[in-house]
């Protein structure tokens, strides 16, 4: 099924590859991926949409949570969350259809970001399914070109993040055995 996974991770080189590596190592194809830094510039928030076998759903999220650079990975697929996507769309239209195109754009709360004799460039945000409809309708007016951002998701529940506190190195360095160290 198509999972939506939200990941809070350190804003470091290679961190993104570690997360996507969990998926590519299992042969999964990423459908959408968005990432940008959070209010804390040292952290990034990533949203991934990926088709995963049901059986491996929790395994994938657990493996992401294991990554040293990942603070928290959450499966938002069935959780209370909002998912929104942005689309940029260019549609060719002639004098006869310009008004109709603008009317349709208005229905989808799309904004005109460029207008020329050839047609319009439109910007819209919304539910990914809603945007699918928007694309379908615009296509009926003429040739279109589309760039989609992929979904950005936000959980509607506060979830406590468990962070590892700093660890003191002892006098002689980290010579303690693993077992002693974890106690």
């Amino acid at each position: 099924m198509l999972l939506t996974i939200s990941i809070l991770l350190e804003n470091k080189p290679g961190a993104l590859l570690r997360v996507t590596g969990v998926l590519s190592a299992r042969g999964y194809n990423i459908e959408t991926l968005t990432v940008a830094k959070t209010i804390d510039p040292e952290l990034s928030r990533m949203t991934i949409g990926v088709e995963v076998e049901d059986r491996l759903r929790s395994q994938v999220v657990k493996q992401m949570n294991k990554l040293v650079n990942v603070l928290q990975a959450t499966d938002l697929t069935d959780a209370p969350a909002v998912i929104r996507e942005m689309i940029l769309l260019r549609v060719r239209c002639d004098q006869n259809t310009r008004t109709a195109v603008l009317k349709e754009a208005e229905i989808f709360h799309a904004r005109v970001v460029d207008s020329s004799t050839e047609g319009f460039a439109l910007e819209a945000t919304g539910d990914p399914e809603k945007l699918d409809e928007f694309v379908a309708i615009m296509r009926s007016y003429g040739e279109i070109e589309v760039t989609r951002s992929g979904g950005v998701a936000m959980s509607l529940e506060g979830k406590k993040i468990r962070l590892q506190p700093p660890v003191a190195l002892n006098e002689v360095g980290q010579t303690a055995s693993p077992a002693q160290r974890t106690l």
Partner: protein
Amino acid sequence: MAAETLQSTSPRTETGKLMSGAEMLLECLVREGVDCFFGYPGGVTIPFYDALYDHHIRHVLVRHEENAAFAAEGYARATGKVGVCCATSGPGATNLVTGLVDAMMDSIPIVAISGQVHSKLIGSDAFQEADTFGITRPATKHNFMVKTLQELPQIVHEAFYIAASGRPGPVLVDIPKDVFQARGHYAPVDTIHLPGYKVFTEGHTGQIRRAAQLIWEAERPFVYAGGGIIAANAAPELKEFVELVDAPAVCTLMALGGLPANHPNFVSMPGMHGSYAANMGMTDCDLLIALGTRFDDRVTGQLSTFARHARVIHVDIDPAEVGKNRTPDIPIVGDVKRVLQKLTRVLQELAPESAKKKSEARRKWRAQLKTWKEERPYDRERAEDEIRPQHLMDEIDRLSNGQAIVASDVGQHQMWAAQLIGFNEPRLWINSGGLGAMGFGVPAAMGAQMARPDKLVFAICGDGGFQMAIPELATIASQGLPVKIIIMNNGYLGMVRQWQTLFYNNRLSAVTLDCFPDAEKLASAYGFEGRTIEKPQELTKALQQAIDYPGPYLLNVKVSPEENVYPMVPAGGSISEMVFGPPQPVTA
């Protein structure tokens, strides 16, 4: 040498001393308690080796970087300390990869230092450049690329911390040449902060209590101990637990020695080449207590029929392992040592009212295990005219008396050794379990012998794996490591040959290893002794001679070539459906 050793106890370098990156790295290694490491220099690591020139840390010059990683693993497996290896950029680093994956699969703490081209040249296809950071990302628990001198000490300590804590594993630190060369003021690191690194050690108290109740209610409890017991140094806790609940226990290939082989509750190794009793016990138990283990396919066989009547308690430090292959009734995420300590305490608390409840059923269960054990013990038979592999392992078992370190390569000999050689302590049995990397045995024995000079160390290899590791005979000779290399020589890639025989109509394709070198000449070419034997009557004496020889020894034992490892669970089959011998010819 004495003066050099004294340096190690000298006070720590003062804060703010001007040092090169190479010197800082060595300082960090000292602070991590590293006394020796394995490596191979190259262009970009020359500045590091230059700093090493007058440093007291012992460096073992291997003959191939892969073996530096394997030797570091051998060191780590024999001690529990972090093993360290080092290679140059490009080919040096790519040669480490097999060892890194091996350490990943078996959860072995090693830190690999790789050199990288000058940071200005990264990405330019410079000489000996490879994207080591990218290549080793899926081969390590975590990896780092150092970009500035300032972050070097922090990263090195983080690498050791990540390697050794939680579920141990390999960590690689990639260091460009200019970082080794740069000079700056060294500030010792006193804390490390990895906010996203989650280690769960304690175990859920409520779950532990529920587990204890389930254990006392079970009629046929069975302990399934894995490599986590060794990694967590939990052998004493395992013994106390097993004795308290008086359940039969198996130790997986990764856990041999976790419960002494001579312990009355110890059954054997389970799984594809496990004993009849172990696999029947797993199949028929009503409570499976899985401790620090991951329900590997080589242990469980067909999952849908594995321990199908049993409830399962699964203790593991890695949350991703719990429920991965088998959904447990009671999952406990934690360090198996801590969890066993707590579990034992709760069990003792409940014992007065609960321990007797099922004692009659449990007595029957123990008797059943005994019957299975006696019904089909492992094959230790000997022949008059040839040395059976089982005979060889049985003799090594007798001579090592559960005390020697045995580093095994991968294949048939590994299975026979695991079946027939008893280990009475943890960290004596060293093998490549998860990855099954041929060529592991000799370098791992080298690392183990470096770590434990007091121990008798065997490297048990097949003739295939040994030939992958021949270059290291020079390292062994140069370091004067008294490793006893025993080659179980059947002239075949035996395990592949066995599968071709049993499942591919005996069409033996590319498994015959001819032109094996003369062992005596080979050993003498490296300056030590060796010989070849093929008569069963010579075996005991030859092994004793190898042990008594004051240095490395190469004993090439020609064994019956067609012998197969049994019992065997055909891949994907139920572990209760074992094969005990070759298909019998139909007689008229």
